[in-house]
């Protein structure tokens, strides 16, 4: 049984063991094989277990490279169960698909051919995803069970659009405050409720607010059952496993009745019966919305869902037509196992596990014909990653012995060591923080909250990855400010420049691809008062910049062509121009993800300006653009589409190679979207009325980009 995370595997194993203990006759052994399994339990798992719960990472690095030790397990493998299938998409999914191909190859080596069983959250294409992941041929589609046989009661969903507090800017009441108010109503009615937040910060804020409200009620003597301090909890990634287990069990036993959580609770961890779910902000996809709302409801009792929207364009789009949530099918999960950047490293791992033999290349790697596989192996041989003995049918491709190649293949992208948050003076570890988030949440002076309790960071030790905090009663929280700069190093661009030395003005190319270098700086932080959210101070931060080296494609954004000799409206307004360019970038990214069959989260897009080879600030619309950004936007803006995985997975380059067809498809998406004047789906954040971007302007930018590409191709 494969689970996407350790926590989920452990949770399900508990339930399985309980089930297994009820089976008469032969005892059923249920074992966990993950990174935390001690050696003697690993041996027992190999020898005695009937069911082994593991994760793709352990399969990739623990089991397959050491398959001799698992020979009896692999020889007797009957079923492979993939839980939470929908999580295996995009680049991660492509890695998992290749790990499964390696598994199947070894199974056939040991003489078994297991049946796959998978479960998935609501997505548009579970059967297609299943076939791509397991490599099952299209001629033998899986049996799809998509109706729930479980009894369910009535389900009511309320979509709440907060009232406008500033008619001039259209800013609405903060979703966090609205969520807080809704939670109070449900708490006082003693309805067990789960509050899903979009960020970890929001979990902490809401946990604190809900605890404050309950305390006030207790003091006022009108506290109900759900107002005890232990009834209100927070739950998010970064909490230590013990704390998470404790909250899960408090939910199951009914001790905790109001829990604020991130998507960490979205997956199938058993939390018992919940009657209501509040979403603080639209989760971003219809699939996630359905999944989270589905957490409420047990047996035949009625369930309540409340979606509290905020002022962002995407949320306001949902507000304008709430049927958007149910009217259309949920999102597709896409995966491309044959992406060479993913496939080739796994072929090398597979050759290390068991040599490939020239006469036996057909049907050993799903999705690849014998000739394709030979080409892949030859490529690896030419580049020194494999060794070939013999020719043609007698060829044997082996990995060079020595280091295990799987050690160098990161299926979830490179992972930096976490920061530990250490309480002073007790020395207890309070939580852990991802490397990338450390400058944002653990800078000296930051207020770090755990289940509403505030701590001030007194010392951040970068290399040892430790942050020392002490408990303080702060009435504010902190928010770090971050700026990103980007440049693209295009080898063709460089050679073009060196080919014409001495030319004073070098015309920057219109589009290209190369290596991208993104650098995030965190210059300072704001102090924000709890409750009112007013800004009460500012402090500097001096921490290392975070860098991302990856691959990217870039396109210069031309001015929309004049219509009837007149410039189109807003053509000379830098902010409006930037907003238009961002709409183009948004469409390019989403269409590229669709065509390349990756997750939209595998790609990122930014807008910058100037020469692509020099550093430019990332131009954002989320708040008032900085004067610097406005200045830059006045020059030629550039769209940079990059792979979010450090080092890249070849996606941006492939997007650029699509050339005209990518531009055409993206233009079609914008021009033929069913919305009235551009919506978050087709134009992203730029669809917000505040930017005054017309759909016509976006389409005409696409027209100009296409025309330029056509003329460049004609010249070439």
């Amino acid at each position, binding site marked *: 049984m494969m689970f996407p995370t350790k926590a989920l595997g452990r949770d399900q194993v508990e339930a399985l063991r309980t089930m297994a203990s009820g089976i008469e006759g032969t005892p059923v052994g249920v074992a966990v094989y993950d990174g935390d399994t001690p050696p003697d339990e690993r041996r027992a798992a190999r020898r005695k277990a009937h069911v082994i719960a593991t994760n793709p990472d352990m399969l990739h690095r623990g089991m397959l*490279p*050491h398959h*001799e*030790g698992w020979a009896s397990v692999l020889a007797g493998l009957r079923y492979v169960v993939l839980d939470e299938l929908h999580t295996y998409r995009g680049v991660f999914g492509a890695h998992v698909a290749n790990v499964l191909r390696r598994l199947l190859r070894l199974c056939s080596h040991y003489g078994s051919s297991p049946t796959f069983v998978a479960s998935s959250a609501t997505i548009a294409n579970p059967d297609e995803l299943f076939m791509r992941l397991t490599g099952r041929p299209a001629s033998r589609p899986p049996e799809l069970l998509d109706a729930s046989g479980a009894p369910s009661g009535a389900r009511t969903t309320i979509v709440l659009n907060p009232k406008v507090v500033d008619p001039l800017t259209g800013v609405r009441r903060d979703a966090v405050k609205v969520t807080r108010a809704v939670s109070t109503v449900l708490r006082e009615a003693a309805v067990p409720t789960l509050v899903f937040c979009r960020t970890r910060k929001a979990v902490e804020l809401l946990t604190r607010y809900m605890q404050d409200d309950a305390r006030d009620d207790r003091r006022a003597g009108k506290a109900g059952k759900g107002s005890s301090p232990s009834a209100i909890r927070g739950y998010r990634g970064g909490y230590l496993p013990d704390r998470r287990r404790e909250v899960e069990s408090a939910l199951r036993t009914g001790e905790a009745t109001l829990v604020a959580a991130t998507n960490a609770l979205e997956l199938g961890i058993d939390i018992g019966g919940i009657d209501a779910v509040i979403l603080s902000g639209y989760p971003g996809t219809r699939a996630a919305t359905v999944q989270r709302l589905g957490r409420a409801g047990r047996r035949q009792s009625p369930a309540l869902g409340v979606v509290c929207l905020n002022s962002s364009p995407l949320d306001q789009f949902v507000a304008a037509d709430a049927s958007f949530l149910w009217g259309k099918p949920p999102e597709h999960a896409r995966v491309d196992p044959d992406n060479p950047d993913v496939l080739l490293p796994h072929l090398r791992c597979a050759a*290390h*596990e*068991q*040599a*490939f*033999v020239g006469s036996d290349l057909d049907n050993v790697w799903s999705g690849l014909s014998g000739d394709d596989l030979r080409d892949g192996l030859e490529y690896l041989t030419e580049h020194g990653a494999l*060794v070939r*003995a013999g020719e043609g049918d007698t060829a*044997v491709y*082996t990995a*060079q*012995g*020595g*280091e*295990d190649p799987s050690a160098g293949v990161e299926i979830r992208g490179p992972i930096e060591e976490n920061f530990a948050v250490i309480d002073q003076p007790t020395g207890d570890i309070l939580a852990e923080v991802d490397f990338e988030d450390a400058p944002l949440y653990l800078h000296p002076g930051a207020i770090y909250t755990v289940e509403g309790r505030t701590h001030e960071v007194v010392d951040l030790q970068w290399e040892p990855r430790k942050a020392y905090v002490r408990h303080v009663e702060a009435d504010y929280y902190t928010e770090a400010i971050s700026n990103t700069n980007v440049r693209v190093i295009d080898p063709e661009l460089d050679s073009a420049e060196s080919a014409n030395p001495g030319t004073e003005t070098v015309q920057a190319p219109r589009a290209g691809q190369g290596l991208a270098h993104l650098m995030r700086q965190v210059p300072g932080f704001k102090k924000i008062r709890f409750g009112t959210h007013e800004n009460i101070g500012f402090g500097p931060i001096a921490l290392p910049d975070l860098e991302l080296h990856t691959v990217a494609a870039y396109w210069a954004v031309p001015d929309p062509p004049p219509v009837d000799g007149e410039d189109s409206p807003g053509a000379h307004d830098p902010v409006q121009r930037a907003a238009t360019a961002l709409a183009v970038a948004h469409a390019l990214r989403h269409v590229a993800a669709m065509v390349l069959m990756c997750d939209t989260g595998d790609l990122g897009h930014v807008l910058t300006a100037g020469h692509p080879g020099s550093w430019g600030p990332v131009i954002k619309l989320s708040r008032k653009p900085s004067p610097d950004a406005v200045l830059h936007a006045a020059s030629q803006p550039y769209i940079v589409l990059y792979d979010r995985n450090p080092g890249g997975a070849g996606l941006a380059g492939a997007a650029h190679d699509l050339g005209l067809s990518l531009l055409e498809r993206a233009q079609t998406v914008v021009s033929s979207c069913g919305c009235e004047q551009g919506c978050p789906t087709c134009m992203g954040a730029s669809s917000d009325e505040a930017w005054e971007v017309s759909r016509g302007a976006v389409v005409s930018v696409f027209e100009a980009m296409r025309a330029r590409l056509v003329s460049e191709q004609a010249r070439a």
Partner: protein
Amino acid sequence: MRLRDRLGARGPSNTKANTSVGARTGGGQGWEQTRWTAPVETPLMGALGPHAVPRGMETLFVPDAASVAAAVRALEGPAADPVHASRPVVVLDIETSGLGASLVPYMAALAWHERGRVHLMQWTLHSPGAERVFLADVFSCLEGVLQPGTRLLSYNGKSFDLPRLRTRAQRLALGDGASRGTVPSLFAAHLDLVLATRRVFKAALPNCRLGTIESEVLGHRRRGDMSGMEIAELWERMVATPRLAEALADPGADTAAQDALDPFLRDDLAAAQLHNRGDVFGLCSVATAVAKRLEQPASLSEAMGAATHLRQIDAADAATEVLQPLVDGSGSPSRGRERGWVDAALLLADLHRTADRHEAAAGLWRRVCDASVGHVRAHEALAKHLEHRAGRPDLALEVAKASLAPCSRRLARLEKKTAAL
């Protein structure tokens, strides 16, 4: 004339007329093969020169085929298959890079008897890419020298060398056709000396590493030998050296590859090869020495170990023969207090009991009870004997009561039986 050239001119003149010293006989890109051959029963260092075996093994020689065959028979016991008379064993030893599934066997040596001489073939891998051809050559040589009745002889080969080689053969898809991945000679009859050695010397020696056995049993104390750790690390250094294969292929050539070579690498590689040869050349002597100790143990604890091993290989009579004189000859009260004697006597008694010599067994238990009053196992065994075989519950009760940890159920039963008398 340059020193290197002069040293190069020196080599062959040292060899005896019909002895090829470490002749490079083959190899290919990325690996090499060297062959050594010497007369049996003659010190190897004398026959092959100072670089044949590690220092400290000056007197090491390889016993003749007949002695080795006899040792194999003694070590395997009466039930084993017949041993080939003129080629009783092929000695096998490999050196690897560290542990784990991804280790590389980068050095291997085989030794066997042939027409009154011993032959040793040694392979060294220089570049990881050549592993498959390198191993294919080792296995084809092994297949060629194995005869019906020949044993693979190793030290810890059962749990180390052979499983590793089988894994590599499997992963590298060595061989052809249906048997691809499986090398039959790796499944040939195998005598792993570590098993007998551990049983015989477990109590007598601090550990049973090959070096310890060589120095304590054969009297060869290696000097300047490489450790297993250094040998594993050596492979890492070799892999990290650019154009190593090129430099090693032609040591005389004045190329850039030579310049890139770590100055100590060549010496260390030679030291690892020396270590590997020492292991392989020495193993026949270890076999004859351990076999001899099975018959003539040097101490009571060795006798215990020998008897344990003999019993394991279905040679219970031989085990009794080994123990009897030692137990009988040292039955004085002072020796009786020695733990070694008590254990030996109990083992001997057990051998008697399983051979239905119950009186002899009872006599030994009685002596143990006298020598070590209250000894739980002896009192229990004697009480059982008196109760069930001799039909004397009264005497059994006395013996059982005197135990340091009497079994209450047995006492109750014996009291009942005694009262009924």
